[in-house]
């Protein structure tokens, strides 16, 4: 059998080469996904020794119970704020680091460092910093304005700290990609605009930003996925779901329901929900990109 196009003349060889990856994906991704989906229709007893089919009851609980509506709200707030802030700050820092300043190599290195830190380590650092009685933040605050804020035991402040920790860690990633994107912008377009008398503001929004839009789309998708899943370490270390459940996000709730409370069926339903949210968001972002993202020809 000869293939008409494509790299491999022989279809069979191509299939054989893909097979190992397919096997691993099936075992570790496709099969568990399907199983989780099926499991969400059961109430599973401790250890999975007994399963009772309950139909859509788990989903009903998720959509009607006030605790889970709170969790969805928390997740929404967390994702919107952390993605928005980390993209904006990342772009700002990348613009600054793009200038020809002395020691710019060192700045660029330092900016990426937080990203290389394991989330657990970053979480503990923030835990120490924001400790109400002995943290460095309250020490400085006390010196400056004579007040100590309850960073982790106040619902709003606790959410702010978790968002801050997550943004701090994600900035490095965004800076690296934006820097690469900025360096790909042809200098003559900006020069032409400068000669025409465009201000820095206009130059940025009319030229730089649109030319960066493929990068922005990519980072938007990656940051959203990261905000949904990687926030677990910060919440577990900093607030354990927060003062009266105010920082419990979906991924933390899945872990808690699955491994602390052993409510496997409910956790499976939440996983399906999370999967659906991320898929829908990614599709929306890709659809928007057709109108708003300009790929250089």
């Amino acid at each position, binding site marked *: 059998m000869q293939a008409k196009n494509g790299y491999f003349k022989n279809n069979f060889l191509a299939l054989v080469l893909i097979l190992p990856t397919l096997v691993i994906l099936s075992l570790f991704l496709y099969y568990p996904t399907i199983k989780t989906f099926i499991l969400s229709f059961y*109430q*599973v*007893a*401790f*250890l*999975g*020794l*007994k399963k*009772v089919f309950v139909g859509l009851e788990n989903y009903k609980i998720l959509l009607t119970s006030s*605790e889970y509506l709170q969790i969805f709200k928390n997740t929404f707030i967390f994702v919107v704020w952390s993605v928005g802030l980390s993209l904006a700050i990342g772009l700002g820092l990348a613009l600054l680091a793009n200038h020809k300043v002395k020691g710019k190599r060192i700045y660029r290195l330092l900016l990426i460092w937080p990203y290389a830190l394991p989330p657990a380590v970053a979480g503990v650092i923030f*835990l120490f910093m*924001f*400790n*109400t*009685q*002995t943290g460095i933040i309250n020490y400085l605050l006390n010196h400056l304005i004579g007040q100590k804020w*309850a*960073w*982790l*035991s106040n*619902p709003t402040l*606790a959410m702010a700290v978790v968002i801050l920790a997550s943004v701090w860690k994600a900035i490095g990633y965004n800076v690296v990609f934006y820097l690469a994107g900025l360096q790909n912008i042809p200098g003559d377009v900006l020069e032409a605009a400068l000669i025409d008398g465009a201000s820095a503001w206009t130059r940025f929004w009319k030229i730089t930003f649109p030319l960066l839009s493929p990068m922005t789309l990519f980072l938007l998708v990656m940051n959203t996925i990261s905000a949904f899943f990687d926030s677990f370490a910060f919440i577990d270390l*900093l*607030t*354990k*779901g927060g*003062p*009266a*459940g105010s920082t419990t996000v979906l991924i933390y709730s899945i872990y*808690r329901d699955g*491994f*602390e*409370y*052993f*409510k496997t069926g409910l956790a499976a339903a939440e996983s399906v929900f999370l999967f659906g949210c991320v898929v829908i968001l990614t599709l929306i972002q890709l659809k928007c990109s057709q109108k708003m993202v300009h790929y250089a020809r």
Partner: protein
Amino acid sequence: MRRFLLVTILILASAIPVWAKKIKVTFWHAMGGSRTAFIQRMVEDFNYTHPQIEVTAEHKGSYRDTLNAAILAFKQGKAPNIVQIFEVGSQLALDSKIFMPFQDLVKPTDYAMLDDFIKPVANYYKIKGKFNSIPFNSSNPILYYNKTLFKKAGLDPNNPPKTFKEVIEACKKLKQAGIPYGITWPLHSWFVEQWIAEQGALLANNENGRKARATDIYVDSPAMKRIMSWWKTLYDKGYYAYSGKPEDWDGANNLFVSGQAAMLITSTSDVTIMQNAAYEHNFELGTAFLPVPDGIERNGVIVGGASLWVTKGHSPQVLEATKKFLLWFTNTENEVRWHKGTGYFPVRESAVEVLKIQHWFDKNPAYRAAFDQLLSTKTNRATQGALLGMFPELRTIITDAVQKIFAGTPIDQALAEADKRADAALAKYNRSVQ
């Protein structure tokens, strides 16, 4: 060629002792930090003195992680022989049906060792009169206090507060002396459960779930309200502090050790750590009974900590080796050793006798409080503790309620909501095991 054959035969011959079969026993535990090495040394001692048995101990993380790991291993058919399960996981362990009652392994000649366990401990771990697991590390909550700071505030260092009101008064004096906080303890439901037991109250119906499976949890009982209103008073007046994060044992320890709080309520398993910290930070440590509500007769505390469960489905040979190890691991000498190295309670009467003969408690008065407190505990359903399958979830419900109360929700309302949540969760759990 001949030389080559000779060398080969010699090498193979020298390997024969390794071929001799040892019975392998695996032991999964949740004792971290310095305790991991401690347990490792004990296991090595056993292996050395019992050459036919080889025990391997593995630290699997927290109690919860250890339990999860054991479940997964069982599902794969590779369950460890011994699992350390925390006290409130006992009902879960029973419902899982992967463990066998320890007492079934024991022969009449070993009964004396079972009778040797201290009454309150035996009380907790005997379900329907039978030992399902063997007690190993038992603890209860005690009051640690900084005698140096007490003297500074004009309080009697040998007369620590015994009741809720006395704690408030002591905190007032401490604050006046310029000490930032009077008292701290982790925001954890364990302490709430202890205070309920001290008042002789029950946490669940059907005699705390011990006579029959519990169907109703008493979250908004008068006993609970008494605890919450005292806690809220301490918090509002700035006498009580916590790091902000729930279940933060280290945060509370740090507040006390750094001198920011003059009193600490936490487990007796930290006595050794606290003594060392007091020495390093130059203050005098005192320990005392858990403070209780005023006007009630002190009922006693619930045994905390964990016990060791044996998984079923192994050959009689392996089970015999497991039993041998467990009885050795918790024998008199080792319980004394474990107590001295950690502060966990010596669970055998004979171990207590040895410590008394050694004048241990006279020389180390800090270890005495938990000991006296447990021995003066009355044997009843309240101090036996509740048996609930969804205990972990109940603990989060209670900590959420406490945080809501701190944030301003009226106590009655917060407890009523928590009660509803708890009962709903219990009903769901019970349905899953019906």
